[in-house]
């Protein structure tokens, strides 16, 4: 009973508008899908308790506005995130293309301790639709190129892979939390390969 605090995992969902962020969140938390969602303004979050490796954790899932212009608002919400979920629409190639910038933006704004190993999860949503335009292979390739980000093809409408994806999200977030705690015991670590990191990030932190 040393510490009574519960594990809270903060998860941020990002992605272009209309890719189904709100739907995914609600499908996972409330097991419901409706086509009545409006465009998210500001930010909202839902919480859900999940069991990860025999531990009960609370996931606080933040749903954000999709238009990139509103991201200045999101900064306040990014802080302290344990995992970032990037969503794209498999029927809209542009939403896939912008994943890169979403990822970069998040890393800049949230400035996690270890950007290279910060847990991301990519969700290709709307696989229930027939007019698919981004192949699983292409998405998979991109994810592999980005430090092997887990990739799931989901359908918020038909609850395909949603549970599985969020389990992974929770697990990775938990790992991140744990790691963060270990870091807390040894603050101000000096990373010897800091330069390499900088290069690998290929301009994540460009001077702007």
């Amino acid at each position, binding site marked *: *009973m*040393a*510490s*009574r*605090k*519960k*594990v*809270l995992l903060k998860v941020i969902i990002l992605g272009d*508008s*209309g890719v189904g962020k709100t739907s995914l969140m609600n499908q996972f938390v409330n097991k419901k899908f409706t*086509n*009545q*969602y*409006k*465009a*998210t*303004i*500001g*930010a*909202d*979050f839902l*919480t859900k*308790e999940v*069991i990860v490796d*025999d*531990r*009960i954790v*609370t996931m*606080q899932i933040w749903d954000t*506005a*999709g*238009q990139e*212009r*509103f991201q*200045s*608002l999101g900064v*306040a919400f990014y802080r302290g995130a344990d995992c970032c979920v990037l969503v794209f629409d498999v*029927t*809209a*190639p*542009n939403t896939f293309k912008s994943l890169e910038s979403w990822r970069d933006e998040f890393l800049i704004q949230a400035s996690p301790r270890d950007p290279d190993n910060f847990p991301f999860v990519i969700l290709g949503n709307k696989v229930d*639709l*027939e*007019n*698919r*335009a*981004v*192949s699983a*292979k*292409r998405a998979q390739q991109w994810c592999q190129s980005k430090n092997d980000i887990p990739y799931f093809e989901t359908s918020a409408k038909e609850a395909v892979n949603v549970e599985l994806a969020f389990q992974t999200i929770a697990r990775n977030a938990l790992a991140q939390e*744990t790691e963060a*705690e*270990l870091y*807390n*015991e040894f603050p101000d670590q000096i990373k010897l390969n800091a330069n390499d990191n900088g290069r690998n990030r290929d301009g994540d932190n460009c001077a702007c």
Partner: protein
Amino acid sequence: MAAEGAPATRSASGVERRPSAPRPPLNKRGSGSLLSQPASQSRYLWIRIALFEKQLAKIIEHLVNNANRYYERDALVADPDYGGILSSLLVGPCALEYSKAKAPACFWSDPPADELVQRHRMSAGTTTPPSVRRPILNFRRSLNASSDDTGSSNTATGNATGSSAKDYVESLHQNSRATLLYGKNNVRVQPKDVEEPMPGYLSLHQTAAGLIIKWTPNQLMNGYAEREGLDKSFRCHLVHASACQNKCILYSMTEICTVYRRRCAGPLCVDCVYWAMSLQVCAWEVVYVHVHRSQASDALILVGQDGVQRPPIQFPKGGHLLSFLSNFETGLLPHGQLDPPLWSQRGSGKVFGRGKTRRRPMPSLCESGETEEVDWEEAAGDYVFRIVNNAIADREAMRHSLLERAIQSPPRTPRRPLASTSTTSSDSSTMSVDYPHSVGFNIQPPLIPAQLPPVEVEQAASIELVCSTMRRQIISRAFYGWLAYCRHLSTVRTHLSGLVHPHIVPRDGAEAGLTEEIWRSMMDDEGVVTDKNEVYRLVYYGGIQHDIRREVWPYLLGYYEFGSTAEQRSSQDSACRRQYETTMSEWLCVEAIVRQRDREATAASIARLTEAAGKSKPTDVVESGEVFEDDCSVISDNPPIVSPEPCEKEQLKPENKPVLSRAPSIDEVDNIELDSEEKETDESKVNGETETGDSKDHVDIDSLTDIDDDEVYIKSVVENPDMRRESIAEIKRLAEGIVQKGDGRKLLCSVDSANMILNGNDFKSSIDENEKNPPQQHTSVIITNPSVDLAASGSPASGGTTANVSPSRSPLGVVREESQSAGASFDTLEPSIDARPENRSNCVSPASSNGGVYSNELVENFALNLHRIEKDVLRCDRNYPFFTDENLDKLRNIMCTYVWEHLDMGYMQGMCDLAAPLLVMMHEEAVAHALFARLMERAKDNFPSGQAMDAHFADMRSLIQILDCELYELMHAHGDYTHFYFCYRWFLLDFKRELLYQDVFSAWELIWAARYVASEHMVLFIALALLETYRDVILANTMDFTDIIKFFNEMAERHDASAVLSLARDLVLQVQTLIENK
């Protein structure tokens, strides 16, 4: 329950882990313990999960039933009785919902907003209105009322009696302020006008102010029962006290103080009840102590400095008087003494100074006093002691200059500084600082005498000194506090004065709002409304009757001018409509380009996909029309990708080559598809559509050749193609709906064939128009989509006339039709390709205000916006019946038109929400657009590109700080709060998402009218009102930043809007009052 299961069997030990008990797995893993998660804990986890899943009882029951397989004989579960009891006891806990069970430490998993509000309603039966809870707002009132307060405390003395009487009796015992030196019961005193001496309790107290002798009748000591009597006596005291000039100062002091002061004055009240009889004398007021000894009793008389005698205090026999006197003398030390001393050092023991007639020494006593007591007891006689203060010299050295006068002029009644202050302040002569009286007085201990006897002592002086210093400190602190507060308030005023209008517009009779009756009465024969201030006032206080909102809103938003005639307004409307349609025709061109590109992009990606899948779908397409059909419907499944079909593409190609940069492979794919599409459409074309198309053409051309006049043209259009289009659009919409659901492929074809005619038809007519008057058409010249041409040519013509519904809707409709007509119009379009080159050269001419060919950036920019708009429009309030496809199209047009006019700003999420209520109210696109543009003049700053949001947050902060400091403290404690992000959506959308439509209307009217009536920032006050409505919930749950976001998101559209809005008005008034009260 836990105890029940405690007898240690395996399962029982698990049962102990009730959810209420700390749950090990919930613990935040400590750095080490995480990794070495005790195996035992995870071993018992199933019990928790079983409990969560409500299966535990069943599991245990099963175990009990099969105990012989799993348990030893002596296990609890195996016991035939206890096992059954155990499982049945678990049924109850298993019925509970544990997934919601929260540890108190986890703030983030608070119950849903509903529950919080419910809880609050239950727990807070007696909520005080917000204004009462805000001391700061009432500050001025309380400042002004300080004199009233003292007055009221005077009049309300009766109420205070009970408690003060109790205080008084309690003060007879030892307490923090007074040390009890001596106490004796049944000491008799014969008060004035009482025939028999009464028994009472005599006590001697050492207080900061000196020695005090109290005598209280036994009747008071025994529970002070006679209330009426008490009240009466108190009243009498007051009357008495006010009669004495010196004593009327301390009205505001507590009751007991008054009693006390009256006592000091000496004379007793005439109608004495017990309170009046009680005696309280300060030792320093007494000059002489007379002792009269007789056989019956010993009497002690205190003589004050004014020579007035107190009623004799009669001690019972038995050395009590002596004991009192000795205690009295001790109490006087170190600064005072009895003269002659009671005990004098004479030989072996202390000597009781023998009193002479005047200064007669009293019979001496031995130390113990007992032996000679008898003599003393028996010796009758009178003794007099003088009370001396032997430390005057010392004190003089210490004395403050302030007090010097008092000492050096003994004849004058020396006053204690406190008394002097109170006197002067009541005279208001010397003290210039008019500090609140209560501050000065209430801190006075009630037992401090206000008047000093001529004989003063060192102790009193030093205490005086301390007291006066403290008093001055308190006063100065109070003053500086007040000063700082005033400064703060004035700062606040300067900040807030910008938020509200200084002039308070009265509310009289405006509660009903702007009803139709009033509105009609305000309008004169020509439809002129001039009294705009009255309109604003009525709307502000009471809203608008729903039926006339459509008429009034344009005024409120400044679209119509007050004072304009009906005629002016209608011409304004038609001008606006023309303008709107012109703008629309502009962006519709670009939209066509965008659609085509989308189509190509989609085709490319699909091709890539199919290629990747290893299938050569294009060949399939070429081979069979069936497959193509499938393909086509797949594309149109996704609305944003629904795009102009190849027919346009064909035409666009030569034109757009410089603009489009495509990979050749994609081109190929497209071409293949195009070919197939052409084939397909050619085939369908053969189905006799050409004839009908021709005949239609004929009609149109006929009508067109007849007229240069708009109206006739319109007639023909309305009569023939438009009506048809109407019905076709109907079918198409139906089909589209089905297609969007993904199962209407067959239907699509039939619609297509219908559209073909129309398109060809319209196109013909528009070409004709083009030829007739090219300059008028220059905007649409570059347009590659024939349907757009139609729109351009048709809409100006229909402007201001009856047929305005169709032009607004039809262009879009046609675009869609075209998108699905799969090149049906291809054939008929042939002439247009001939016409193109000319047109193109035309558009390059300087006459084109749009600069002819649109730059690539512009097209891309608009494409981006277009896609966003479409996504959001589709999602906008689709649960509202109003938003049918038709009305969504209107909304989309409004959005596109506005964005086209403000491409630098672009579309931002939320604009749809702002435009939707306007469209719902106005129905007509053009006017709704005009109002939206006006609304955006203010609202655009709220979007991320503007600065207004931060300003709103800052203002909210100040307002909360002033109006609700308690809430502010809470917010301040959670640093994040200062960002006020939970209001973000409120401000961005003017509460559109927080309230239901009907309430949004009221809220918006309020905001618009408030601008002219009370505040240009009404949104702030509505936000504040929302916050205040739930302040108790927020405070009770000490919600933090995230909690509050969640709370309000959950509460959206469930607020009591009318209450919130009226609270908002009240808040404005409060701030106005605050600022007015400089």
